[in-house]
């Protein structure tokens, strides 16, 4: 892994983020009405709006506004929330860690469950195990998060015979068991669609590996099947598995929005919904940029992981 490659990738990430920031900024420009309207409300007079617009600098050319905004971002000045009268950085910061705890829990669960499932399905291809996992995969990828969440809530939470809390959040450092009981349902919802998708992909990758010439050659050397799977097949399916998982982080970041809303989890997703409903522009911009950055960086990390796992990949 050359330093040159790393620098180039980081530069790529930066470029992508610039484009995203531009798009986000552009969208807010297209917004019917502007920040002044948001703050003062529908019933403000023309003069009031103009005055506030002047103060906020909304009448300047768009590129000047963009560069000022971008410059602020880079200096870690994310502005003030229009609705909450708090610095955006503060508001988003707390939410970020809450979301992170949920996302990481979901991701870890997915990896632990989905990869072995996929491998099993490939090893026992055509058997009932494979069909079962396949069915799970098909159903899982067809259920939007809100459907899964709702069904889980109906059957596992709720007033009559509920086993788990229907929503809310307890920080892990306050009470770990509390955290666990509250995170199970949302993480499970988030994880389900991911597990289904990843299991399917891993199955397909592993099947390809098992059908390859070098696996055949290994078997024809008289190696025991255990050895063939462990030493020859698995290492070759790790790199594609990492690739699939990194792609699915995109689904995860989208799903988190809905899941947090349903389970009242105080993370970025819930904050975003609130900001969208209330047209809190600085918050919207900040969260979008943050999520895009997380996605882009996770792609970078997965590329690095793939390079570490596959000796053919030499950047």
């Amino acid at each position: 892994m050359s330093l040159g490659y790393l620098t180039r990738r980081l530069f790529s990430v930066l470029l992508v983020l610039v484009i995203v920031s531009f798009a986000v900024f552009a969208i807010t420009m297209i917004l019917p009405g502007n920040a002044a309207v948001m703050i003062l409300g529908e019933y403000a007079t023309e003069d009031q709006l103009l005055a506030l617009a002047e103060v906020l600098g909304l009448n300047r050319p768009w590129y000047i506004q963009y560069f000022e905004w971008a410059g602020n971002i880079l200096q870690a000045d994310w502005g003030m929330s229009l609705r909450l009268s708090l610095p955006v950085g503060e508001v988003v910061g707390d939410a970020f860690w809450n979301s992170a705890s949920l996302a990481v829990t979901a991701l870890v669960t997915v990896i632990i469950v989905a990869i072995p499932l996929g491998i099993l399905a490939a090893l026992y291809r055509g058997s009932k195990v494979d069909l079962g996992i396949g069915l799970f995969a098909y159903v899982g990828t067809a259920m939007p998060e809100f459907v899964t969440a709702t069904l889980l809530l109906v059957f596992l939470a709720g007033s009559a015979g509920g086993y788990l809390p229907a929503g809310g959040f307890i920080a892990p450092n306050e009470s770990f068991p509390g955290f666990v009981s509250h995170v199970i349902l949302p993480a499970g919802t988030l994880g389900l669609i991911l597990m289904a998708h990843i299991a399917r992909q891993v199955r397909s990758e592993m099947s390809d590996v098992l059908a390859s010439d070098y696996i055949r050659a290994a078997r024809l050397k008289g190696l025991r099947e255990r050895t063939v799977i462990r030493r020859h097949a698995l290492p070759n399916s790790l790199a594609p598995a990492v690739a699939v998982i990194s792609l699915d982080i995109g689904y995860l970041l989208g799903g988190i929005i809905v899941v947090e809303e349903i389970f009242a989890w105080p993370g970025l997703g819930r904050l975003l919904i609130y900001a969208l409903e209330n047209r809190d522009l600085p918050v919207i911009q900040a969260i979008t940029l943050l999520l895009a950055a997380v996605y882009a960086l996770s792609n970078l990390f997965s590329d690095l992981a793939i390079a570490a796992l596959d000796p053919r990949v030499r950047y």
Partner: protein
Amino acid sequence: MRSATPSIREGLGRVVEKLGNLPAEASLDGLTVLAIRDYSLNYNTTSGPFEALKSINLEINRGQTLGLVGESGSGKTSLAWAIMRYLPDNASEVSGSISLLGENLRGKSHQEILEIRGRRISMVFQDPSTSLNPVIRLGDQIAEVLVRHRGLTPKQALTEGEALLATTGITKPAEMMDRYPHQASGGEKQRVVIATAFACNPELIIFDEPTTALDIITARQILDLFDRLREETQVTALYISHDLGLVSRIADDVAVIRRGLVVEEEPCDRVFSAPQHQYTRDLIAAVPHPNRRIASPAPEESASDLLNMTGVSVRYGETSILTRIFQPDRELTYGACDVSLNVRLRELLGVVGESGSGKSTIAKVLAGLQDFDGSLRFNERVFATRKSINTDYRRAVQIVFQNPDASLNPRQKIREILSRPLKLYKIVPRSEIPQRIRDLLSKVLLPEEFADRYPHQLSGGEKQRVAIARAFAAEPELVICDEITSSLDVSVQASVAKLLVDLQRDTGTTCIFITHDLNLIRQLAHRIAVMYRGSLVDLFETNEAENAERHSYTRALLDAVPVPAGTESSPSP
């Protein structure tokens, strides 16, 4: 899952194994190592059972090499899988037995088969790039066989592995042990595979087309290696190939298999001097032999040049600004380097080289598909860039590609494919197009009804004929054939090559024939050009091929391509 108590015989057997192979005693000569008796194999497909092998009877004695020759679909590979007991689920063994030193392999349990594979029977595969695990070091891939079957510790196995690599001719075995497959060349990888196969001193080794995926010179080296190891170890070998000529050099006995049936089984020299079956005779006739000319009469010495290439170079890796930002490490590589060549009117010029020699690059340049530096002179006009190539040139110069599956648009009927050049160049008025299509099809010896078919309904050889017909439809002055026979079976190759020569003779078209098969080109061409790593290194009249002043690379190529044994004295049938 070890078996509970090994029997005494197995125990004794293991002791003997640990001591090393039994020495080749005179009394063991003539011992039958592999015996296949009345073996039949079916595959159950959705359209009914497919008879892959029918009543096969074969024997290989100790220290002998049996060459099994067949074209694609003959069942030769299925036989290899049957011996290794690695058949797919839809295979059903209808009858017969396969015995190794008298033990019937069909009766063995899965565990026993695992003990046999790699230890008593091993296999060398066709393509070393795909039969080696890309993420495991080469050394480990040899060592694991030793650990598994000879009970060595990993450390001992690595040392032994290194020694084995040395015997297969690898110059720096210690380094090679540490490498990954993608860091080794095709020849080096195949030596590793061969070393692995020999590692446990097996009783039988199956070689499945081990040189097909390699370059000519590398293939020859591997063949020589096989010969040497055969001498040294007296190993019993089953050598599978589609190349009768090649097999004739290294086999003691030859069996010819066609559509699941063994049609001929003879000692090697008898196969060529007195072939019993018509198919064998056809195969022998199809093997290219330099002394059997199929060319059209040579153009006169003073014939003018149709085409001149002067100082043509092709550079890859030109970078745009964006690419330079994101991939600054991309190097400049040369597809062709300063090539100057003339093509005489009405001749068939052969261009020979291995992969990467630049012969296909030159073909693309001449067909107007590749940007280049230098100049082309054709019919009094000079072209210095690809863009300057005009429609007249494109009509007059046609190209036929190597891969028959990819050279015809799968969504167009043959009729449409053939009518395209007719319409584009307005060769004939619209009303005459159907007739012209019929003429073209009959010229390439295809039935008229094919006009209504789609490419996937034709065989490889038939598709290639259509591609040739398409090229000649434009009434060109020059036809470039880029390895048009390389993807075809031997028997089909010969007919397509002959077709081309006949067409050339009938229409007076000039032809450039690109190939890696030296024997074939010596049959067809009037002059031969030799390319190596992008440069033209030699150009000579075909009958001067074996002269002393030939370039060293040309001589290396000639040495690497053996003339089929037993055919020197046979004139054209």
